[in-house]
């Protein structure tokens, strides 16, 4: 049987590995636009110069040989023919169109950067996003001589770019429509810690001022950002980090139904026979662990081992800039009826939101030691154990059980 996987990210690579673990002799092909396997979450370290391309990899160097996987890199899939069980792709080098047949197909293309509808904003020499290694390379190259680096969007990707640039010795200006940075990742209090650090490092933030238009010169190498307030900001490197959306372009005329992402059932199968999907393209979650888990489940189903994808999806993320770690799971801000518990000092900030004694959100900053149980409590809606005199003493201890193999399990 021949398995074709589109995408060499977390979901695709995991799927290939799991297929190999279960089907020793099946043929496995990975097709990717990327010509390197790397972790997107580490691209800022490439910009900052602390890692080279090889150091961005999340797989062992001999991964493809050892697992007998054929990797066709630098090839961009443009279409899927589900009747003929073939995919069509362009060769990145020669531009030639070619195709590859499959018995089982996994769509694991991930997501792509989103360009907000701003007048005058279009790809050009001074405009970048930060999604792929090629983007990071472009930023690193352009930033060297750029005087006025502007980042649109103060989410995790925008700040990753900013952090990499700070490490290069640059001081970008970050433009954010909202009122604080990392609004999808942290509450205002925790976000402020990082904002202050970025400002200390020379960065400038512009909040709540919508970009009306961008005017580039004829060469597209420098331009002016015009805000609705009338303020203007010159730029010779503009990084657009306004969000991402599932990379579903290749499905346009395939007949495989999609909404925001491709539609999958509990086996991660699309509505087209033999076609599965995993990772960001499903639109189920944008997290790394979800991509890994979906890659694994999809692969098992591709091997004929019926497996249900039953991850409990809960917003979660970690942030680590300037050696200040943070994590947040679930709600960032309370809803009516919630109880908020906060404790803090100069170095640490911890917030737990509960609803009827069940934690629905946690934000930890500064000290995140041995705190993983919160994520489990929130996902599984386990009530805070009242045996402890304080909510802050919550731990696995009050649900401590071991199974016959000596693994921990949460007592009911």
């Amino acid at each position, binding site marked *: 049987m021949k398995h074709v996987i589109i995408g060499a990210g977390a979901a695709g690579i995991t799927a290939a590995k799991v297929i190999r673990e279960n089907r020793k002799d099946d043929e496995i092909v990975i097709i990717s636009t990327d010509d390197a396997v790397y972790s997107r979450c580490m691209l800022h370290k490439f910009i900052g110069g602390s890692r080279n391309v090889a150091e961005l990899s999340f797989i062992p160097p001999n991964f493809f040989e050892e697992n007998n996987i054929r990797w066709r890199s630098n090839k961009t899939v443009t279409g899927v023919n589900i009747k003929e069980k073939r995919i069509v792709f362009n060769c990145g080098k020669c531009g030639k169109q070619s195709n590859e047949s499959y018995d089982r197909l996994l769509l694991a293309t991930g997501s792509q950067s989103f360009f907000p509808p701003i007048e005058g904003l279009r790809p050009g020499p001074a405009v970048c996003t930060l999604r792929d290694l090629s983007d990071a390379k472009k930023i690193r190259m352009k930033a060297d001589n750029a005087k006025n680096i502007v980042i649109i969007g103060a989410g995790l990707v925008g700040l990753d770019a900013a952090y990499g640039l700070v490490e290069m010795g640059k001081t970008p200006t970050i433009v954010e429509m909202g009122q604080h940075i990392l609004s999808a990742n942290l509450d205002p209090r925790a976000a402020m810690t990082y904002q202050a650090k970025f400002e200390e490092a020379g960065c400038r933030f512009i909040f709540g001022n919508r970009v009306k238009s961008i005017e580039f010169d004829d060469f597209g190498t420098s331009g002016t950002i015009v805000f609705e307030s009338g303020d203007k900001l010159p730029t010779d490197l503009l990084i657009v980090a306004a969000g991402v959306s599932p990379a579903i372009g290749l499905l346009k005329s395939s007949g495989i139904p999609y909404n925001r992402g491709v539609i999958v059932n509990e086996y991660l199968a699309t509505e087209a026979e033999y076609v599965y999907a995993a990772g960001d393209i499903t639109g189920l979650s944008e997290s790394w662990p979800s991509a890994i888990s979906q890659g694994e489940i999809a692969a098992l189903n591709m091997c004929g081992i019926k497996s249900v994808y039953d991850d409990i999806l809960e917003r979660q993320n970690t942030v680590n800039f300037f050696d200040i770690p943070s994590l947040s799971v679930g709600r960032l801000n309370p809803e009516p009826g919630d*109880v*908020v*518990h*906060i*404790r*803090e*000092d100069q170095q*640490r900030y*911890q917030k737990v939101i509960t609803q009827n004694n069940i934690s629905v959100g946690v934000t930890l900053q500064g000290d995140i030691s041995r705190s993983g149980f919160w994520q489990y409590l929130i996902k599984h809606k386990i009530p805070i154990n009242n045996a402890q*005199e*304080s909510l*802050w*003493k919550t731990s696995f201890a009050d649900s401590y059980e071991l199974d016959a193999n000596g693994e921990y399990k949460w007592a009911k």
Partner: protein
Amino acid sequence: MTQRFSCTTCQSADKPLERFVADLPLETSFHRVESQEVKCGFGLQGVCCRLCANGPCRITPDSPKGVCGASADTIVARNFLRAVAAGSGCYIHVVEGTARNLKKTAKSKGRLVGLKALDRLCAMLGIEGADAHEKAEKVADAVLTDIYKPLFEKMELTQKMAYQPRYKLWDKLGILPGGAKSEVFSGVVKSSTNLNSDPVDMLLHALRLGISTGLYGLTLTNLLNDVMLGEPEIRLAPVGLRVINPDYINIMVTGHQHSLIAGLQSRLTSESAIKMANDVGAKGFKIVGCTCVGQDLQVRGSLCTGFFDGHAGNNFTSEVILATGAIDAVLTEFNCTLPGIEPICDALLIKQICIDPVAKKANAQVMNIASPEDEDAILKEITAAYKARRGNVPLNLLPNHGNDNTLTGVSETSLKAFLGDTWQPLIELIASGQIKGLAAVVGCSNLMGAGHDVLSVELTKELIAKDILVLTAGCSSGGIENCGLMSPEAAELAGPKLKAVCEKLGIPPVLNFGPCLAIGRLEIVATEIAEALNIDIPQLPLVLSAPQWLEEQALADGAFGLALGLPLHLGLPPFVTGSPVAVQVLTSDMKSLTGGHVLINGDAAESATMLEEIILQKRKDLNLP
């Protein structure tokens, strides 16, 4: 619900204090409890032995004996005896210093404030002299001669001080102490590597240490201080952080040796001292009471007006008092002087002065206090600290903390005088059942269990609700007074009968005898009441509790309580539960020896019920209703 970090174990019976601590920008003992929460079970049970290079040995089912062959019983008894010996040593140091101060004062014809106390003491000890100074010197010599005796010579004042039925029993049991210092010495030797292995012998030795600690370290220290510093007088006084007045140069005192600052304290209101203070912009000098020496100032407060406004707090309140920023110097002469005050003093530029090197803090300046010049030098240092820090260090006061009407100045003498120079009214109230019995709630505060002062305060509330009159001495007093239980209004919290008594007499249901040293005063009260009734002390409807005992000294106090034949309640076990023999002797067999026994319970309501049952049984045995 925002709280400062790491303060999940900041619980205190004193809620305003708890909130204040939670918001402090400085680390205190409260903050460190959480990171020390996982206790070693071997240590808790007293079965870790570090007496030799083969150790540390711990007792487990697979290793029931140490390498040397010591059983859990031997290891526990050795550790326990060492602790009691050390605790006794502390109190004997205190009485030794106090007696030496009295001798020095007498020899130099210095001021003796409590002449009546001197006469009573001379009568008790059978000492005569031509004048007060001669009498005082002879008293001091008698005490010093006794505590310096070798182990094999019994101390002579024991018989004069102790209640005779007790003395006879102690003699019969062979636990009459030799020289108090030698008893400590012997306890240390006995419990050293591969010497004594007899748990019962070592526990009996602890009783000998208890007797010398109680009669000398506690009782005599009070009585000697009464001669030098004057006697307590019953009055109402302010307590808590409210006593701190930032307009003055404030000196926080920690320790147990009030007589060391007898000269200094009278100097504080002198013209020259006030001028010194005025010159740097302060109104004068004030001593802010903290720990037991603060309690001692407070019980003698009628004689300390002008330089002492009240007791601010007990052992674990000391860091908090400093954190107000209004203290300019800490004057240290003994425990409880927590190492935790050091970084706070450093951060807030508070001068640390140590006047007895046994309590030397790392950053403290040791200053001898032998002459008026020495006292001047100390005041100069403190004034310089005031000048350097005020205006540069933020104030963080808690002016509403505590209360203004805590009854203080209670002693065996002042209480008896209050009752009409006889114990008869109290005896009648007990006999009629208006007062069900007496409970001495003494000892320290610790931060274990429910938190700072929590068990002391809650147990006291439970006891008074059962019409049991509570008498306190030690850091327990500090917590209980700050929580308002020593104010006349606290009668509301007493049971109906005790409440009626309190309202009639205008007293609170909890009588504050002051420092832990005053456990000795409680012993005199017990002795005199027993004498009046012609019964032995264990027959009295009297129980002893050190609900939040903290330190080795408390264990020595506890040993005194057991020697007196009292039921002794503790909130936490004294690191002995790993030994079946120690547990059996302390909780049960002791009854047939001295009449006393240990009971351990960390729950206020349960403990109060247990103590009430004991009192009811004793009443029954005395044919009281």
